[in-house]
């Protein structure tokens, strides 16, 4: 066959392209997260916030915060906000709570994922204390009240007067099952 070395060169570079694209698909994961974090899209909230880092020259105003809860799939938990609605002043810390009840006779490990709507307001909702920062456990038939302490900073867009803070509760069932499988 003619062009042996050239053929090899094309072959090897194509193989390189395939390898690169495979790893690129995994790079999409951090790229996506960085993109969402930088632009504040998709309502994701990243960890606890530093309290009052900025200057106080921005004016204060009133914002309506609505609290939502969702139980994912068929998790045997009752989960709801203690108040559905709160009028808060920007830059003032407010406190509310969510109530969760375990409806089974087993101990449950739960993780709760927050989301803010509209998505662009996510970076303005700062949480100081939240049950979503770590996993929660509920003993059989136990009810717990989970506090949230947060403030809405005054850089919130003037167009936004209503902010929805939503929590989705997930049962960490699969990990437990895997752990059980490993033990045996």
């Amino acid at each position: 066959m003619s062009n042996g070395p050239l053929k090899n060169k094309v072959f090897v570079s194509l193989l390189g392209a395939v390898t690169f694209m495979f790893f690129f698909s995994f790079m999409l994961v951090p790229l996506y997260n960085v993109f969402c974090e930088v632009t504040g899209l998709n309502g994701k909230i990243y960890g606890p916030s530093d309290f009052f880092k900025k200057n106080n020259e921005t004016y204060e105003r009133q914002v309506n915060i609505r609290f939502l809860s969702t139980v994912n799939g068929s998790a045997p938990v009752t989960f709801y906000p203690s108040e559905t609605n709160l009028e808060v002043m920007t830059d003032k810390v407010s406190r509310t709570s969510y109530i969760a009840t375990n409806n089974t006779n087993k101990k449950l490990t739960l993780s709760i994922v927050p989301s803010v709507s509209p998505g662009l307001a996510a970076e303005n909702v700062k949480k100081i204390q939240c049950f979503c920062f770590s996993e929660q456990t509920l003993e059989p038939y136990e009810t717990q009240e989970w506090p949230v302490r947060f403030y809405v900073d005054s850089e919130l867009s003037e167009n936004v007067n209503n902010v929805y803070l939503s929590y989705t509760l997930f049962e960490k069932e699969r990990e437990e099952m895997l752990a059980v499988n490993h033990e045996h």
Partner: protein
Amino acid sequence: MSAVVENHDHHDDHHGPKKGLMRWLKTTNHKDIGTLYLWFAFAAFLLGGAFAMGIRAELFEPGLQLMDPIRYNQLVTMHGLIMIFGGVMPAFVGLANWLIPLQIGAPDMAMPRMNNLSFWLLPVAFGILLSTAFMEGGLPGFGWTFYAPLSTNYPNVAYFVFAIHIMGASSIMGSINVIVTIMNMRAPGMTLMKMPLFVWSWLITAYLLIAVMPVLAGAVTMLLMDAYFGTSFFDAAGGGDPVLFQHVFWFFGHPEVYIMILPAFGITSHIISTFSRKPLFGHSSMVYAMVSIAVLSFVVWAHHMFTVGMPLVAELFFMWATMLIAIPTGVKVFNWCATIFKGSITYETPMLFAIAFVVLFTIGGFSGLMLAITPADFQYHDTYFVVAHFHYVLVPGSVFSIMAAVYYWLPKWTGNMYDEKMGRLHFWLSFIGVNITFFPQHFVGLAGMPRRYADYALQFAEWNAVSSVGAFLFGLSQLLFLYIVVKTVFAGKKATPQVWDGADGLEWTVDSPAPYHTFDVPPKVK
């Protein structure tokens, strides 16, 4: 020394294929492998078609008659997977194997053994996928798009993942083979711009495959890890994001839909030029149009997911980028029309399929433009309007072009002419069937009938019954296609090397049927 080598070559040239089953298992001949691919695709087409008949039978009237919704979802999923990965893609690879070496004057594909491997991986992959039918949990039923976290919580997902991995490996090897062949083995004098358009379309398709099949492999790998190894790429409970899955999937998925149409553009260009007895209008603009379509395919993926809650600026970007694709596609359609214009046209079966391709593919393109309008898409999303759109570009688009190609090159492959009357009958039955099947789906879609349900509201009943009747007509007429092809393989009027009097290209300079070994001495291209 050289004389000895030549003698040896001479000896090699004249031994024909092995006899029996081992010929097909061990073959490294591009024509044999092309034939294998084409028959595999035909079998998949009939199997996927049988699934489609099941779907349409269930949807013939409202209510659940024949199956429960889980079985229905399995049929929908397998119909999609088999038609895409088992039907359309292998059919195009089969055509590539047969035609690329013949059209560029090469003796074979560059890596014949890898070629053999990439074909035989396909039955393995589909064997794994279909084996789940006999397991507890059954066939995958999460749709061919396997959105997480539905798919991660599904039984037997590992079999699906491995099947996709193997299909992907097969496609990647096939594409590497195509590119290396085209880059290194063209006959002297055949510059890139002189290459026939089918070869060009496959060169671009192969690059697309190399770019996105690894991304599909990555997506299914993440899926597998989420399902079995406790990671949370797409699982919100562990900090992952289900929307990320859609981004990764459609980053593969949109170039994939062009992988399934670009070779059709190449085929149509050849056939329209031959039966208009004119050179193709705007050869180089056709090449540039295909390259632009391929490049644009990487920046439009999110138009499949307008409703996930993207910011306005992203929706505008993806809307405009998507609409931009209409420009190079329009160039191609106008070039085909200009080629037909004032030609000496005859309407043999391949030409009928090619003209139907241009008209019906354009209808599918127009409904695509409607879907690209973001605000309108919120109404159309996940309705039968989308189903009608992508079946218009895939069935009378890709599938018609494959049928056109089979009729067009079948005399070259078998040495026999097919039965023209039967061919035309097959065309008209298919043409009428496909339109009766899919045109009413536009109406029910606009009226709000959602996709992927085994049942529907009563007001959609009439059009669904019509659609099902069309589907049965289309499905049955493909048995006629099978009969015509089989008959042509064994008998028929002998074909001349030229076959069609308007045909132009290196493949028409060799005998019909094409000898087992061709172009051992490269032809000169002026």
